[in-house]
């Protein structure tokens, strides 16, 4: 059953991605991209990753769409024409990268494999000791904000500096 739902969601993802890249009206493309983010959030939820799903829903489906719409306000809704040779080069590059990724995927451990390195390295330590050491039942929160706090600090700094850079770029000269 859950495999069926997952397969349906993945087909939906592919369809929405195609709409997003092929729509002549960029407003439709932006909305399709938002729907794509929402479908992706459902995929994460179906895979048992509610925290990732939550982030994808608020950022991928919500914030990104609003920012694309705001950007569209400043430009045109129409797609500009790209000459055919460039299109073919782009298509070739996308297909080549896709093929490489597909081949690389075969090397990844199976999803849910308890013997895989991600499940045997530090994960058991976190899962066993989180509640005792941090009184936090949601191990994801404890890992993100305590055990791997450096990563989260740098992420926050990236968002902050990225936002500042965008703010400075968008500031108009008087």
């Amino acid at each position, binding site marked *: 059953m859950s495999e069926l739902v997952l397969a349906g969601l993945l087909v939906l993802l592919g369809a929405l991605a195609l709409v997003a890249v092929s729509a002549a009206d960029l407003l439709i493309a932006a909305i399709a991209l938002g729907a794509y983010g929402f479908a992706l959030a459902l995929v994460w939820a179906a895979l048992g990753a*509610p*925290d990732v*799903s*939550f*982030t994808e829903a*608020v*950022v991928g489906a*919500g*914030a990104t769409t*609003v*920012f694309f719409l*705001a*950007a569209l*306000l*400043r430009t045109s809704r129409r797609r500009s024409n790209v000459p055919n040779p460039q299109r073919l080069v782009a298509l070739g590059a996308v297909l080549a990268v896709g093929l490489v990724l597909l081949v690389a995927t075969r090397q990844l451990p199976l999803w849910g494999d308890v013997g895989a390195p991600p499940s045997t390295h530090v994960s058991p330590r976190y899962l066993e000791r989180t509640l*005792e*050491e*941090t*009184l*936090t*039942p*949601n191990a*994801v*929160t*404890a890992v*993100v*904000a*305590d055990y791997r*706090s*450096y990563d*989260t*600090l740098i992420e*926050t*700094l990236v*968002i*902050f500096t*990225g*936002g*500042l850079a*965008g*703010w400075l770029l*968008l*500031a*108009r000269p*008087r």
Partner: protein
Amino acid sequence: MIERHESVVVTTFARLVIPLTHLFALYVLVHGHESPGGGFQAGVILAAGYILMALAFGREQLDRHVNERLCLALASGGVLLYVGTGVPGIVTGSAFLDYSALPLPLSPARARWLGILLVETGVTAAVAGTLIVLFVRLADRDPDA
């Protein structure tokens, strides 16, 4: 300049939804220890509430609540709160971002629990401030804004 939306349906709906959005953001932040979510998601939801306010009631209304200076202060303050929570760890000779070194009469586990809440609050402020400022700058076409 983002103007107030003309439709009464939009403004009434927004008036109803904005407080709930902000309440939900607060819930996602403080309940991050127990349920999915945390500082980052809470920050985006908080910003979404203010972006809805700008879209429904116009830029002036948003500026009455959070103007650009406040957003930038919020964003920088959030980053400082995060870094500041990590400093006691260095001072006491432990490690940067070791929350159990917080100078409070708490058990080490409870101090780490509090430290998580503090840094998540910092992330919320940083993300919300950054997103609001970026959105206003991106969407607002007024040359002298």
